[in-house]
């Protein structure tokens, strides 16, 4: 598939720019290529679902975009930063400022309540306690969970836990949200609620979302679907909503 440009994904300024990205893992002396020659631009405000069979490299690609992993080759610019040029500490600070994470299993800290879980990323920013509180309450109200903020994860349903995780992802007001199978652990009703919430974040707050999913129904909520096959971009599909 030729390079996917911002025009292909609805136009506008690119927030994610991948040029000839490659990623390999080494098992002793054996190189295992996972991604090869990925050229992809995603515009600001885009909502992209990365799809493909297991082992196609979609989670690896998501990790590279989110600054969790580093490419073996190629150029990677996200939110205006060339991630290859950042050292580990700078990359950590960059993630905190620019990326919100939504995980399949929510990854909430079980010993912290909903409020404290949402507050976690703000602890790294130079904010007063009252400012942190204001932002946490705002994020929790966006996911409609203000009344459960003192509950611990074990006291919440799966859907509520994922909504807390979404509140945590947006509390720093990041440009980019990355989601790895965000509905993988939810029943149909809760999954639909979470997907609608993500759609709102994209449409109303302009958040750029990159989501890895196996689920075609979940992918249908995105504006575009990008299919990977054996580590290369296979095809791009525009979703008619």
């Amino acid at each position, binding site marked *: 598939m030729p390079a996917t440009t911002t025009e292909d994904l609805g136009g506008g300024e690119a927030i994610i720019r991948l040029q000839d990205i490659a990623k390999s893992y080494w098992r002793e002396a054996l190189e295992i290529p996972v991604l090869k020659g990925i050229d992809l631009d995603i515009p600001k405000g885009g909502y992209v679902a990365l799809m493909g069979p297991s082992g196609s490299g979609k989670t690896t690609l998501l*990790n590279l975009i*989110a600054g*969790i*992993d580093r490419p073996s080759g190629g150029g990677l610019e996200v939110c205006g930063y060339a991630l290859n040029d950042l050292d*580990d*500490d700078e990359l*950590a*600070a960059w*993630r*905190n*400022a620019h990326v919100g*994470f939504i*995980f399949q*299993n929510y*990854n909430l*800290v*079980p*010993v*912290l309540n909903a409020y*404290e879980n949402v507050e*976690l*990323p703000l*602890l*790294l920013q130079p904010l007063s306690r009252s400012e942190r509180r204001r932002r946490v309450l705002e994020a929790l109200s966006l996911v409609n969970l203000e009344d459960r903020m003192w509950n611990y994860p074990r006291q919440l349903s799966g859907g509520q836990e994922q909504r807390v995780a979404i509140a*945590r992802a947006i509390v720093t007001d990041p440009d980019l949200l990355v989601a790895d199978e965000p509905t993988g652990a939810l029943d149909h009703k809760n999954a639909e609620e979470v997907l609608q919430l993500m759609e709102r974040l994209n449409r109303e707050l302009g958040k750029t979302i990159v989501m890895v999913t196996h689920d075609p129904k979940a992918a249908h909520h995105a504006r575009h679907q990008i299919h990977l096959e054996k580590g290369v971009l296979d095809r791009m599909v525009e979703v008619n909503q």
Partner: protein
Amino acid sequence: MIGLLVLLPFAAYLGWLLWAAFFLPVPLSYNLRSLWQRKVSTFSTAGAIALVVGIFVVVLSLAQGLSVAFVTSGRDDQALVLRPNARFELNSSIERERMRILKVHPLLAREGEQPLCSAEVVAVKLFQKSNGDDTNVTIRGMEPMGLRLRPQARIVEGRWFRPGVSEVVVPRKMQGRFPGMEVGGIVKMGGRQWDIVGAFEAGGSSAESEIWTDVADLMQAYKRDSYSTLLARLQDANRIGEFTRSVDEDKRLKLEVVTERAYFKELTKAGDPIAVLGNLITVILTGGAIFSAMNTMFAAVANRTKEIGMLRALGFRQRDILASFQWEAILLCGAGGLVGAGLATFANGIQTGTTSFDTFSDVGFAFTITPGLMAQGVAFSLVMGLLGGFLPAWRASRIPLTEAMKGG
């Protein structure tokens, strides 16, 4: 030089860790609650630390107790005159003629016409303790002035001994540790029966390990021609050097002078074997406790790998994770240390004794737990947390991010 190379990084790490305690982005409440969540491993590790710290504090309190027994015994303005190289009263011997010359020394303090000094004889006698073991007990014969030179000694039952009628007084503490020492009872020494006419206390000093009687009675019973020592108060504590030289250089005397405080300080070495044994036990248990803390923390890291991955993904740096887990280990061990130091206080005041290898006699003393010793115990537990927690914390901070997010 090598020590410096080891200590400098350690000190730098410690300094950074203290700084991190105040500016650490990962809240300590996260660590405290994580410890509380894993109650079984937390309590078993804290229990092991408490045991070690308890033993550590009790061992230190033995030395403290001995120190109280001996150091409170001595005064700087009182001197003990001994035979040269005798080192201890039991080995010393001073003939009557020399004693007569000593007693008129011009540097001795006086009370009216009487010099403030006491010619004394020290002997030992085998007694059976309450637990059935035999041990030597020091018997001290003194002149009436001997009581004036020991103002901390006071009768708590009965009265002081009288000369010439084979009477003794015994320490109150000894009554609990040796049977048959009640006032009104009888002890057999030197082929005679002695009436116990009083019980005394002496401020926890080593005097509370001795039976006291009149020196002439004791010399007669033990068929001694010479005294053991002279205890004398000087006119001025600053003139002890002058007194020492004078006694050493006088060809008629040729005796050795030590201040009473220095003499008793030397005796505190009686506790060295106990301290060595106690420290050895502490070292062995410390190794076990550190291993236990390390094991608990490695398990915590393994169980929370995904959490670590999530924290790193949110922007927490490797050193934030290192400090967080290191503090968790320190808090865990510190809690154990507090419990251990608290438990050790139950030993405070318990009377015990040891046989001095210098005097071959029993030295009674009490376990003395002071706030300083408890603080040392807690500090010791914090060091255990530092050592036991370092490797797991380092491991937690070094798990590759992608691996941590998958759960290791």
